[in-house]
């Protein structure tokens, strides 16, 4: 950035620009579009990042179907479904937080919805770690750490559980990062940074948060539901 004051036209333009404007851009419209495109490109990298594991899962499922079905039936469908509902609700509250900013609601409303989103996200993680993963630990279903499964298709079931923990673990990591970002957003909202002219950080975080929700939308059926559950009558 120049350390001189700039031309007269630049100084005049500066005063006309809203707070949060970055000077490499020509105007706020260009900045908004650039920010949105940038976040979408990042989400594409996330599609390919998770996608590598999804692809591997699809391939192994095709090669080891009975083992993967057996493994899938060892998961807790009720908890998985409940968690899916929790995440979907958090996406709603995130959308409502952005909406609140867009229509110029006062910062308390924005913070309220952001907090709700955080709480729902934390609830998801709480259910996952303290109920599902804890239960799996007790049952000796954690590969590499305390694997003790001795039922049918043991090797393939262990492979399944590798995927289960790696994929839900990576997803949980993304949730934790998201919650961290939400904390920062709440702080910013508390300082009155957002209004109906400037809410880009909210929108961009929303894109990230919804993406993490979509990953779970696929994880839930792929891990929990397509395991020939009809043969068991429920877990």
């Amino acid at each position, binding site marked *: 950035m120049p350390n001189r004051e700039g031309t007269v036209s630049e100084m005049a333009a500066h005063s006309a620009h809203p707070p949060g404007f970055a000077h490499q851009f020509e105007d706020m419209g260009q900045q908004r579009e650039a920010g949105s495109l940038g976040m979408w*490109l990042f989400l594409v990298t996330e599609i390919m990042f998770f996608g590598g594991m999804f692809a591997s899962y699809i391939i192994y499922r095709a090669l080891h179907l009975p083992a993967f079905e057996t493994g899938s039936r060892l998961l807790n469908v009720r908890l998985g479904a409940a968690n899916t509902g929790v995440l979907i609700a958090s996406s709603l509250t995130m959308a409502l937080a952005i909406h609140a900013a867009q229509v110029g609601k006062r910062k308390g409303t924005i913070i309220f919805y952001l907090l709700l989103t955080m709480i729902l996200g934390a609830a998801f993680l709480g259910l996952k770690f303290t109920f599902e993963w804890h239960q799996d630990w007790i049952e000796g279903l954690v590969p590499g750490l305390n694997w003790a499964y001795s039922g049918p298709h043991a090797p393939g079931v262990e492979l399944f559980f590798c995927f289960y923990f790696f994929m839900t673990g990576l997803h949980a990591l993304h949730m934790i990062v998201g919650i961290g970002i939400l904390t920062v957003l709440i702080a910013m909202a508390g300082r009155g940074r957002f209004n109906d002219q400037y809410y880009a950080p909210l929108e961009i975080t929303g894109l990230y948060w919804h993406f993490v929700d979509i990953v779970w939308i696929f994880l839930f059926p792929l891990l929990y539901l397509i395991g020939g559950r009809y043969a068991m009558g429920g877990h």
Partner: protein
Amino acid sequence: MSTVVQPVDDLAPPESSRVHYLNAKYGVRSWLLTTDHKRIALLYLVSITLMFFVGGAFAVLMRLHLIEPQGTLVEPDTYNKLFTLHGIIMIFFFLVPSIPATLGNFLVPMMVGARDLAFPKLNLLSWYIYVAGAILALYSAIAGGVDTGWTFYTPYSSTFSHTNVTAVAVGVFVMGFSSILTGLNFIVTIHKMRAPGLTWFRLPLFLWAIYATSIIMILGTPVIAITLFLLGLERLLHIGIFDPAIGGDPILFQHLFWFYSHPAVYIMILPAMGVMSELITCFSRKRIFGYGFVAFSSMAIAVISFLVWGHHMFVTGQSIYAALIFSVLSFLVAIPSAIKVFNWMATIYQGSISYQAPMLYALGFIGLFTMGGLTGLFLASLATDVHLNGTYFIVAHFHYIMVGGTVMAYLGGIHFWWPKITGRMYPDGWARFGALVIFVGFNLTFFPQFMLGYLGMPRRYAVYPVEFQVLNVMSSAGASILGIGYLIPLIYLAWSMRYGPPAGPNPWKAKGLEWQTPSPPPTENFPEIPVVTEDAYEYAKPGGHRE
């Protein structure tokens, strides 16, 4: 070409009286906390050059060891570590970032007529991430090295190697994010920040190449990230998804690895091709022949490059039917590259050619890249690949493209834009001499390797049958010449930064927005955003008047 009001003559006022990006602020903090894309480009230039010489040092040790058939310079285990670290450092820490992070960072905003990239702070972050990854890689080298080959094939890398695989895998993982942020920045900048009048088809072809490269970076890098992540998990937990004991498939690792690593070679060559279009047009004083073809061939390469990765796996256990598909697609991917070469040749034809150092590098590129590319077809063909895979033929093939191609274009670009970047001119006599030494040294190093490979010498071997010694000695002799050749530009370019004559805004009388600014440019590039009214490379109409 623009409405920028700057004196376009070679009698520029002494730079000491003018504020530009190099002297606008002083001090270490102003460099380490800069968000100016030009300074970040120089930060990258320094770190990449450092890594180049580290990787080169490993190569020198290898070639010295290979002078003797039963070499005694290093232990075989050490030799394994040398070729592994040479590959990892050269690919991930030199070639992948080289042109994009140095020339790309410097030029992309200037070529689109913007003040900076879309996300300057992310740009700086990408450099710090690069440095973090490089430190991890260097740490793993110092802590005892890695011996899996840069390809990290399982199950050796996941289960049996006792070297610092995880450390270097984390280093490469981290470096991947630097790549992604760079590519993301370029795509957004080119889409959203072009100056008025600068339509897509008026862009310099360097930008088309950078754009295509950035697409590959965005789509491919995450896959190697997850692959190395999974490899790390398997080493840590002693169980994982590549473990045959639980039904895992080591070949799946190779699929995931090469899904990125093949497009990665196009990350390495596409920017070089972009530089080529700039050099060839300027030093032939001619418009590019077939602008549309060259632009679309970059995009075609970006897409098709993702469809051919299985050609690295023809002999490792892949199904023959998949191999057939990959073989056909691999022949296809050669076509856009060939189109570029033909278009460059047609541009040179009947041009007003001058032979300064950048042009010497460009001409060298055409010959060497073509040889490297054509030998790729031997490897794309299934039957010949069975014979040639795992031999020095492959080593020669990719070095012709990466070194004879990318490094030559990189050096050509560095020389071409050096006056713009530093405001100084380098001594052209020494530059031409250096280019020739590099060309001779390169060919002496790698041409014998084609013959060695064809005769059956395997790659990555610390020892070899005595009948291969003559060719190996030739190759090692060439390597010494090549090593000296790389030192020559290092010396005179560094010298020129202090003692070189000041260069004016446009010493090459080249076309392009970046040449409409003073050398070195001011921090904000353009006091007023230019308005573009003509196509790229308006040197002369083909067959018409020449300047």
